């Protein structure tokens, strides 16, 4: 597929190395949201180096949404980011969902396919939220087994993202970062590291976010997310409707010092500002990435 001059390889398959980014790890991207279609296709988003689309919004849909996604894919790399794969649930894996997801993947040929390490529904109902998992051996094995089956079905590795959470289960046997690292190793999958989510959880559950980052196996991390959140007083709420705050920028720099740069996405899902405001944040992302690259921190494979 022609990607408008940007270097995009074939879709990553199971037998390729976990991290295979060179200069492409320096890219900065935005979410592909209808609110910005007009600006994007009006030529105002040239400097955005990739777009990430919400998988479910294009899975069973023709019409304008799919038309625009394919139009974008002809110009730039597109990543597919799901919110309903329901990895951690006790429900059976939804075969119908997987078939539909695979059809979209075949059609769009995304560079990265990701979803969240959480549960999003039970008893056949999707609740459209990212609910926390108990960090216990049983749910770890459960996730490993399901991610393996998903990857077998899709014929490619997926990336799982760490989610924001507001509650911890009493039964937890390990820390969140241990759980994520173990799941990724067990399922031989990739990690989408959301740096805002690490920060939000570090405040909500009182831990050191750097400890979290240090523990994550960098050779499995293929993408970063950055976003804003809302301060609720007693805790932080991951709303994706504010600019990125300083502690998250700092943690982003720390992460790159630890494991190098990766394609980095700014997530904005509500209270959409003018595109120019997001582009200003995006330029800052790019500046930080290039700063780290210049220091020789481009890619560290542990």
């Amino acid at each position, binding site marked *: 597929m022609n990607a408008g001059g940007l270097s995009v390889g074939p879709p990553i398959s199971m037998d390729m190395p976990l991290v295979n980014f060179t200069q492409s790890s320096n890219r900065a991207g935005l979410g592909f949201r209808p609110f910005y279609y007009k600006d994007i296709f009006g030529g105002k988003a040239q400097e955005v180096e990739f777009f990430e689309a919400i998988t479910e919004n294009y899975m069973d849909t023709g019409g304008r949404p799919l038309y625009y996604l394919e139009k974008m894919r002809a110009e730039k790399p597109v990543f597919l980011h799901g919110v309903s794969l329901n990895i951690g649930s006790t429900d059976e894996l939804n075969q119908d969902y997987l078939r539909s997801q695979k059809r979209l993947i075949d059609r769009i040929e995304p560079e990265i396919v990701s979803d969240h390490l959480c549960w999003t529904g039970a008893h056949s109902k999707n609740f459209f939220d990212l609910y926390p998992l108990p960090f216990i051996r049983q749910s770890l094995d459960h996730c490993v087994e399901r991610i393996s089956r998903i990857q077998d079905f899709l014929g490619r590795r997926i990336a799982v993202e760490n989610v924001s959470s507001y509650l911890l289960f009493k039964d937890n046997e390990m820390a969140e970062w241990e759980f994520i690292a173990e799941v990724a190793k067990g399922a031989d999958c990739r990690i989408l590291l959301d740096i805002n989510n690490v920060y939000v959880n570090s405040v909500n*559950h009182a831990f050191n976010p750097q400890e979290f980052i240090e523990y994550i196996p960098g050779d499995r991390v293929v993408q970063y997310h950055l976003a804003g959140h809302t301060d609720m007083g007693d*805790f932080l709420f991951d709303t994706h409707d504010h600019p990125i705050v300083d502690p998250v920028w700092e943690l982003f720099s720390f992460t790159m010092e630890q494991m190098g740069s990766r394609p980095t996405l700014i997530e904005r899902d509500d209270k959409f500002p003018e595109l120019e405001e997001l582009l200003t944040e995006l330029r800052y992302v790019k500046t930080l990435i290039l700063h780290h690259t210049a220091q020789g921190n481009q890619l560290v494979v542990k």
Partner: protein
Amino acid sequence: MKLVKSYASGNLSSSDIFETPAHGSWQARFELYANGLRVRTKESMEEMYPRLVRELSGDDWNTLGSDYLASDVKWPRNLNELGLELPEFMAANGSKECHIDLAKFERDLHLSFNAFDSKETLSLEEFGAIDENSHFEFQASMYLISSNWNLFSHLKDASNEWTKKSEFGVIYRLNFKVKYFSISKDEFNFLSVLKNRNSLGDSLNAAGPFDPEQLSGLLAKIFAIKVVTKIAAA
């Protein structure tokens, strides 16, 4: 859902499941999850049915929405499609017929917007090659609607009182915009049969006596809105 229900009925305590958070109460944090579900489902339904929301009082809409979500309705993976089964739910639960028709109309607008259309459309010039044995194929985004109420005059001006009156229309999508226009009962019958893969001749017979001028006017309109994708011989 079980957790939400046990929480609402007061049968869940923090000591059962959650760590006491570093700051504040676990209940405030749990509310965040419970509220999030309420807010998201409500917003999604209101996006699909804006006219119905305006039509019903706030309380009636809230009751209808929460009863619908508490029913056996299939929860789709795409939040935007949560309300797809609302018209059937309304019909099974004694809603007013005019409101059901309004809901069906709004659902058809949504379905039309997202339909997988063919890239091919036929122009009026190709119309000459057809005869009474010809079969037509239409874009998936084309919907025919009928109501026993004054749906179209109500759509034009919501202050028009609902009255019993048979009305018919076509919903279509052109250049990614969904539009509609009203048609007569004969035109509706003719298009319904034709859309069902029957021949032009059979469709005309089913619609009863059809004024040739009216027919060519209707066909010209149908071609102009680019909903015909294929014409095949029998």
